[in-house]
Structure formats: structure tokens, C-alpha cells
């Protein structure tokens, strides 16, 4: 266990993640001259068609205490399996419009293989394990609830 793992990390942020915030995160790594590779994933809200309507924005909500715990576990699990120098995870709460960014996964390593594999697996785990919900607001004022992984929930009332 190193100190990187033990720091308290803010993951859930209000509103969209701005490109300038991303630039600032990248800049902060210029002093870490053992890093050779950064892998970044950005989830952008799509203006999907739902019937004859279109998604204008997603309203994200979460079971915050459990979400933070899950992000922490996902983080530890990645640090245990990959040789990583840094990891930063951010997910939006509240309204994120189509075209804006709601997920920012940023992993850095000495060589690129670790960053690439960790980044991809982190995104999969976040989508699968973190209790976040998204209400897709449509252009006629109605809404539908988004679901990433409905099959793992089907008929699962314990």
C-alpha cells in the first residue's frame, strides 16, 4: 500500500467535466518525469434518438456513500493489478447536456501497456459497479431512465 492509494479522492463532481479541467489535470503531471504514457477516457453524453425524440441531457444521481466506496475499491483493485504512477477518476452528478463530458478516467504509467489496460478496465468496472443513475431528458419534456447493464439486474430481487 503506498500513499497514492490512501489519499482521499474526490470523484463525484457537480455538472459536466470541462476540457479546461482536463487540461489542468494533464498539466499537473509534467513534474512527474517518470511517466511515459497517459491513457484517458472521456464519456460524452450522446443525443440518442428514442423513438421520434432526442436526448437533450442526462440528469445524474447517485447513492453517494456507496458510489465513493465502489470508486475506492475499483481504484485499489487497479493499483493492485497494474504498474501505475497516477490515477484520477471523475464522474458528473446533476445535469450534463448532450456533447458534454460526464466521465473522465485518467491513468498514467511508465510504459503504455499498463495505462491502456487499466483505463479500459476502469471504465468497464465503473459502468458495472458504481450506483449512479441517469435520467435521459428528451426534447419533448419527457424522460427515460438509462441503464448500462440491465441483464445483470434482471429478476434479481433477493
Amino acid at each position, binding site marked *: 500500500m503506498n500513499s497514492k492509494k490512501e489519499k482521499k479522492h474526490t470523484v463525484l463532481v457537480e455538472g459536466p467535466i470541462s476540457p479546461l479541467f482536463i487540461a489542468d489535470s494533464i498539466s499537473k503531471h509534467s513534474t512527474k518525469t517518470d511517466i511515459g504514457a497517459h491513457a484517458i477516457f472521456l*464519456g460524452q453524453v450522446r443525443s440518442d434518438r428514442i423513438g421520434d425524440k432526442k436526448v437533450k441531457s*442526462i440528469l*445524474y*444521481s*447517485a*447513492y453517494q*456513500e*456507496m458510489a465513493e*466506496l465502489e470508486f475506492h475499491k475499483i481504484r485499489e483493485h487497479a493499483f493492485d493489478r497494474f504498474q501505475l504512477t497516477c490515477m484520477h477518476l471523475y*464522474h458528473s452528478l446533476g445535469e450534463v447536456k448532450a456533447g458534454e463530458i*460526464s*466521465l473522465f478516467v485518467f491513468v498514467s504509467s511508465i510504459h503504455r501497456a499498463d495505462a491502456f489496460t487499466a483505463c479500459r478496465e476502469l*471504465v468497464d468496472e*465503473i*459502468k*458495472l*459497479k*458504481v*450506483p*449512479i*443513475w*441517469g*435520467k435521459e431528458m428528451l426534447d419533448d419534456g419527457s424522460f427515460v*431512465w*438509462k*441503464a*448500462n*447493464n*440491465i441483464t*445483470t*439486474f*434482471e*429478476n*434479481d*430481487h*433477493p
Partner: protein
Amino acid sequence: MQITVLFFGPLAEISGLDQIQVPDVSDTSTLTGYLLGAYPLLKSQSWKLAVNKELCPANRDLQDGDIVALLAPFAGG
């Protein structure tokens, strides 16, 4: 004995409440039966239970003060 039940996302729309207190339920199966009786629309939804922020895939005993959350399919990302 008192259990706090939390509703989130689409399930909070069904219950009309963010949380309720349920007395005298000894395990999660009993609690599930109670919830399906109280909120029949839950039968048409997919959801899981978490007990004290841990997913609960099988029946387990509950203790006074436990916090149980009803979780619809996640949509992060």
C-alpha cells in the same frame, strides 16, 4: 428493531420517497416481500439490494440500524 430503506433513481419515483423505516424484518427476503407488497410496481422493475453499501446477492439476516438500498440498473459513464 428498525431498518432504513433507501430508494434511488427510478425506484424513488415508484416509492415516492427517498427513504422509509421498516420495523421488525429479520432478513432481506422478508424485507423484499414487505416492499413488493407495499409498492407493487417494484415487481415490474429490475433491482438489487445493498445492505450497508455492500451488494447483497442472497438472503441475509438484518440487524437493528442496517441501511438497505434498492438499486436499479446503474447508468454511470
